[in-house]
């Protein structure tokens, strides 16, 4: 046994308080461990014929070759049952339009400000810069739909729930959900698009305007009506004054309190309606981002050639099999990646991530130890977030993701853990790490090679990394391999800010039934 897992209440063979006996047991267990390790090398059947291996990979073990085989192709994009419009192209169009809409922020910032298509949907800054400078790097949203958790600390469990955070974060866009709803409601094109998907907006949101008559009623005196409407809107239109429910710290604290006060002054049906429409819109953001998927990279061609695959044109990573897709340096880097460098401990599989969290000991601003609580705090947030996959706004609260949220474990070792980023497209998304501290891939490789800039982790910490002591050539080889995980920019129109407008589609006859049901669930709750 490698670790004593006993607890005081566990009557275990390992907990017998006889030191000699325990030592003998430990020795025998160590022998068992050794046997297990020996067994590993004979259990694996490599899915790649060794005869196809180029010289640079010929010394790899069967296990290491198996790791390469898992690098491609990627599985098809999984469904998102929490979002009923996840694969509705109309929703994607609306999400696309809003992604680039600077009206969502009083500072004129759109999602694309930090997730710029010209820079692989990053801003190429170390720390994201919206209304102010954020404390973390803006990751690319390409392939974000393949992530189990979103955000560096995994604070979100779906694309749509994540979209609310930058919108309302006073450091990022500084907007709010009420303004989001109002913009869509008051923009004829956006409103028509919304209503074609979800049906008419809840009547609650138009009630205040209806109460004073329609501003489109030409029989009235225009000046009087305009003044009346203006005053009434200021006093009564729940969407006229931005409001949001959560207090937030920072330099704009008073403004935040005012936002919260206005939100709390709204009656429950209005708040429910705003939340529901906002969530519908957020789900359109999610639908759009599901289309931001990277194309196949050289590694896919290379692995296909190793497997002797017949390329399936419909496959996610369809690309001509080509052993020359990786040059000799990249092949050597690949060999290191799956062997001595140990990268596949976390960057595994076809997405080059385990989609979970690790603390690699990067020191914080204090220069001594990690100081960002990261996953430790995120666990609390995601479990209590009303917009999580298990919540009332989810379209499948009992589906797998909802179950995962409910099952999340909070433990001290989560302190300082960040999500393992995918390495697909990594060469296009500098700078690196959660705080963008490394400007280049060379800097990243240097860190993992030397561990300079890392701190020993406490007794709750995870011990994953060891100094690699790579040669200059080996470092260059690793960088060459990492570059092979990127591909040329896609020609997909979804990767551009402007698109052809969506053909007009008929409005729904009635309010979206799911919306009605959700309102009902909210009220029951």
């Amino acid at each position: 046994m490698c670790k004593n897992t006993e607890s005081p209440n566990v009557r275990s063979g390992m907990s017998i308080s006889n030191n000699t006996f325990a030592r003998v047991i430990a020795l025998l267990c160590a022998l068992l461990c050794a046997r297990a390790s020996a067994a590993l090398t004979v259990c694996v059947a490599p899915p790649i014929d060794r005869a196809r291996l180029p010289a640079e990979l010929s010394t790899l073990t069967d296990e290491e070759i198996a790791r390469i085989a898992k690098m491609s192709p990627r599985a098809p994009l999984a469904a998102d049952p929490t979002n009923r419009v996840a694969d509705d192209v109309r929703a994607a169009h609306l999400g696309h339009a809003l992604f680039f809409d600077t009206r969502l922020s009083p500072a004129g910032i759109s999602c694309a400000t930090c997730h710029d298509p010209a820079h692989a949907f990053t801003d190429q800054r170390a720390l994201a810069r919206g209304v102010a400078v954020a404390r973390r790097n803006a990751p690319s949203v390409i392939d974000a739909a393949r992530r189990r958790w979103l955000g560096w600390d995994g604070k979100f469990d779906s694309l749509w729930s994540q979209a609310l955070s930058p919108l309302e974060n006073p450091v990022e866009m500084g907007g709010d959900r009420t303004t989001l709803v109002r913009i869509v409601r008051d923009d004829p094109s956006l409103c028509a698009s919304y209503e074609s998907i979800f049906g008419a907006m809840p009547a609650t949101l138009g009630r205040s305007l209806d109460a004073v008559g329609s501003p489109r009623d030409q029989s009235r005196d225009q000046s009087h009506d305009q003044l009346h409407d203006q005053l009434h809107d200021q006093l009564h239109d729940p969407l006229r004054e931005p409001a949001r429910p959560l207090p937030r710290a920072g330099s704009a604290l008073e403004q935040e309190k005012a936002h919260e006060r206005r939100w709390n002054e709204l009656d429950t049906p209005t708040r429910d309606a705003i939340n529901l429409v906002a969530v519908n819109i957020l789900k359109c953001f999610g639908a759009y981002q599901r289309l931001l998927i990277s194309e196949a990279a050289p590694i896919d061609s290379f692995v296909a050639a190793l497997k002797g695959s017949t390329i399936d044109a419909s496959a996610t990573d369809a690309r001509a099999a080509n052993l020359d897709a990786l040059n000799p340096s990249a092949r050597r880097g690949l060999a290191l990646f799956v062997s001595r460098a140990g990268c596949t401990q976390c960057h595994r599989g076809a997405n080059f991530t385990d989609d979970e969290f690790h603390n690699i000991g990067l020191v914080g601003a204090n220069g001594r130890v990690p100081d960002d609580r990261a996953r430790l705090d995120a666990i609390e947030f995601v479990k209590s977030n009303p917009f999580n996959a298990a919540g009332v706004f989810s379209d499948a609260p009992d589906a797998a993701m909802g179950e995962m949220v409910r099952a999340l474990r909070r433990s001290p070792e989560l302190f300082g853990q960040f999500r393992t980023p995918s390495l697909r497209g990594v060469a296009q998304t500098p700078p690196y790490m959660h705080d963008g501290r490394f400007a280049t891939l060379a800097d990243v490789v240097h860190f993992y090679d030397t561990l300079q800039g890392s701190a020993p982790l406490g007794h709750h910490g995870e011990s994953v990394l060891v100094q690699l002591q790579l040669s200059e050539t080996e470092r260059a080889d690793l960088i060459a391999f990492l570059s092979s995980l990127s591909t040329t920019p896609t020609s997909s129109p979804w990767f551009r800010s402007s698109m052809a407008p969506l053909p007009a589609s008929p409005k729904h006859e009635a309010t979206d039934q799911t919306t009605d049901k959700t309102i009902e669930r909210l009220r029951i709750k």
Partner: protein
Amino acid sequence: MIRLQQTMLLGLTLTALSCDETTTPSVTPPPAPIDVAPINAEPRALREGVSSDGTYRVGWEPIGGVIPDADPFAVRFTVTRSDAQPLTDDVRASIDAEMPHHGHGMNLVPTVKRDANGSFVASGMLLHMSGRWVVSIDVQEHGVTERTQWYVDIE
């Protein structure tokens, strides 16, 4: 207690010196508390073991036969008494896993339910990282817990 220690020692010794690393230890009574499981690339129907004090035989298998790469999975496990007596209604079982070399466990807390056949089904298992894991199943009855453990090496 001394007798128990001696018996365990014998079991472990025979197991450790056995040449066939893929064979479940067949020493009775009681078998070794540790079974060596193959890696996830190798489907295997059932992993079996005997609890720390030999009271229970415990067997488990991932539903679907293979532990997936960094994805949640469910496990079905069975618990029977070594003396062939039926389990009492008081029996409780739980499952967990950790990476002893890395000092962490799973990021999820599995939920265990007992099905109509008396088997236990645990959902929310997630061996997210490659390397050696120790899977533990605890059986609690009459206030006493016995543990059975397996190594699982994830690729």
